[in-house]
């Protein structure tokens, strides 16, 4: 009997190799924490930038003015015939606004050397349209004085938001210092102020001459109809395909090839689906250009692999004992799938579908090719078929379009649009997480 020889020293005192291993572990933990912090930092920077630049778009400068709807200008024949009133174009309404502003300036006692026409330049070009729509809807009000809240020019709005300063307008031909003095006077009077702008969320796109009037609403409807098409087509096709592949199809080289191709399809860049959509749906099938239906079809192609892969994964995760038990009590194969396996896999399928939809919602590239980018989203659809077939844009396409326009006011709206899009995406992902938490069963 000899004493056991202690070749590695005491367990209480770490030797050099143990210390080394422990140090390596500590280092690795540090790398992990650093990686997470960098990720979080990036996310914070991104969110702060988006919110900081985008929130401005939800507020807009408005001016409240009493306008005399002069019968001499609007209804020259005096017969209150709508056809005759319609002949007065928006250009015919501009003098009414100059006059209203002139009256307001006199009433508020604002000193200005501006001519009425130059005064009216602080108003949005949209104001005449607002006025004309009101008169056409209420022809009986001609001759009365009605109080209106008009949008102001994007430069005036920029002045209130700090984007436009007295220094920066030195070379600007759209606004001058005298007009800013007038704006200051109207602010002091309380007639001109910044307010929450619902029209940004509900309104339609506007041309380059009036960025202040542009809104996301109509392109949101376009996105909604596209998502509807994707849901109606991709969910049944995707689920049916995965059930067949997972539960019924024989395992042979054909199904192997199909499987590999589905995985490959999921990795195809989305622009490819856009070109395919242009070639097949528009050029060959003669579906209309810029229609949400075509956009939806293209995005369906893009979303299908995502849905098929996630559906198959959730079907696979249902334990075989469930199927065996169902078959054991005499259920047919189809009964076992539809009565037992599918309900248990449903939460996973829904999660996959929602994430697929969220991906499709944020997709711009394929829409470029099927004509959904441009000055498009200006007619709100009035029925389901017009929603599907009439030209429309989509939220990400609208953001892209705004980001490339000349007027800096559009840039702010692009950021604002990103906020709306993010709210949609976060909501959809939250629903997906909630569904999973609530209904998922662990085995």
């Amino acid at each position: 009997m000899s004493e056991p020889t202690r070749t590695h020293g005491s367990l209480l005192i770490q030797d050099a190799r143990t210390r080394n291993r422990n140090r390596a572990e500590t280092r690795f933990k540090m790398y992990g924490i650093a990686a997470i912090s960098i990720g979080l930092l990036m996310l914070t920077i991104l969110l702060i930038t988006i919110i900081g630049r985008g929130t401005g778009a939800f507020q807009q400068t408005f001016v409240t003015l009493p306008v005399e709807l002069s019968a001499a200008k609007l209804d020259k024949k005096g017969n209150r015939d709508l056809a005759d009133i319609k002949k007065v174009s928006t250009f015919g309404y501009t003098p009414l606004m100059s006059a209203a502003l002139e009256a307001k300036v006199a009433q508020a006692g604002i000193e200005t050397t501006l001519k009425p026409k130059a005064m009216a330049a602080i108003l949005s070009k949209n104001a005449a349209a607002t006025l004309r729509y009101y008169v056409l809807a209420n022809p009986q009000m001609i001759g009365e004085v009605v109080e209106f809240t008009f949008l102001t020019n994007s430069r005036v709005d920029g002045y209130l938001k700090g984007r436009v300063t007295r220094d920066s307008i030195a070379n600007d031909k759209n606004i001058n210092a005298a007009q800013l003095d007038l704006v200051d006077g109207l602010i002091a009077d309380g007639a001109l102020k910044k307010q929450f702008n619902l029209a940004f969320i509900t309104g339609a796109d506007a041309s380059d001459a009036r960025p202040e009037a542009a809104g996301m609403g109509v392109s949101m409807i376009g996105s909604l109809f596209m998502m509807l098409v994707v849901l109606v087509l991709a969910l049944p096709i995707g689920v049916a395909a995965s059930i067949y592949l997972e539960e019924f199809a024989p395992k042979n080289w054909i199904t192997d090839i199909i499987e590999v191709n589905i995985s490959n399809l999921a990795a195809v860049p989305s622009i490819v689906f856009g070109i395919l959509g242009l070639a097949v749906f528009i050029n060959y099938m003669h579906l209309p250009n810029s229609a949400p239906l075509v956009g939806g079809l293209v995005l369906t192609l893009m979303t299908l692999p995502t849905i098929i892969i996630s559906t198959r994964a959730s079907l696979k995760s249902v334990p075989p004992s469930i199927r065996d038990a169902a078959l054991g009590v005499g259920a047919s194969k189809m009964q076992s799938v539809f009565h037992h396996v599918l309900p248990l896999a449903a939460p996973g399928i829904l999660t996959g579908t929602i994430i697929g939809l969220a991906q499709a919602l944020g997709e711009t590239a394929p829409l470029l090719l099927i004509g959904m980018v441009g000055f498009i989203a200006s007619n709100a659809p009035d029925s389901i078929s017009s929603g599907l077939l009439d030209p429309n844009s989509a939220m990400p396409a609208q953001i892209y379009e705004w980001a490339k326009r000349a007027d800096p006011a559009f840039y702010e709206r692009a950021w604002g649009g990103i906020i709306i899009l993010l709210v949609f995406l976060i909501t959809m992902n939250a629903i997906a997480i909630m569904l999973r938490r609530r209904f998922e069963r662990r085995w």
Partner: protein
Amino acid sequence: MSSIKMTTSALAIAAVSATAAAARDQVQVAGSSTVLPYASIVAEAFGENFDFPTPIVESGGSSAGLKRFCEGVGENTIDVANASRQIKGSELEVCTANGVTDIIEVQIGYDGIVFASDIAGESFEFTAIDWYKALSAEIVVDGAVVANPYTMWNEVNADFPAQPIQAYIPGTKHGTREVFEDKVILAGCEETGDFELFKTVNGDDKKAAEKACIALRTDGKSVDIDGDYTETLARIESNKDGIGVFGLAFYENNTDKLQVATMSGVVPSTESISTGDYPVSRPLFFYVKKAHIGVIPGLKEFAEFFVADEIAGPDGPLAEYGLVSDPALADTQAVVEDETTIGGGS
């Protein structure tokens, strides 16, 4: 089950596409991104003032627009193509081959091309010669053709500050590029007399000499921008030494960030362009398919509205945005009114 669902979805698509074959009721426009803002301003005002729906305006460039325009006649082809240059003979041939024969050419006005740099940087007073000497791939020094040796602006012209040459110019798919080459680089080449030497070197071949003039250097001093002017602006904001080529309207909307350079001593403005004093400008066009007039509701009204005095005139919203109004607008209105097609027929 799967086949049933497939069939129902296929039927749904078929049903929807059947309704798609019914009439299109809004005008569709595509083409030049320079004309896009003007066209969208007109489209918006048109939608407001007429009972027709607001026309759809897409961009993509003059060439892309004209290509789609020439694809054929029918409801799934566009009605109007915007272009920042005149339609080419080759494009007209494609049009004719596809059955697009009666085309109405409408000139809406002029657009100025300006050179602008960061507002805080140095100011420049350019001539065409300066740009040619700064950007051409090969120039003539002491009677011999050499690769462009200049790297600083003060080497090009002793009056300029010592600032590295860095230009952001429109890519080749833009109509603006052609105007830049023709009216600036080629003009500079001819003014210096280098053109004659290039001609001699190339055996009296005028075409080859022109090509030699407008071949731009590829060493990174001249960068092609294939995107929009917003991209050019972003480049200048990140490189304060950069000088970019912009449309007049874009510059006028960004005067707080950009300063404009004069050309041959003239400051670009709608006035100096309409009088012809500012040398770098080009006409803007749109093309209408005559076969679609009467088929697509509102097409002729849209074309007429586009060139109406209250829209395209010197006090209209287009001029306010930066378009240089055409002094011969009345002739253009007559062209639209009579539906005069290219080649004179009506």
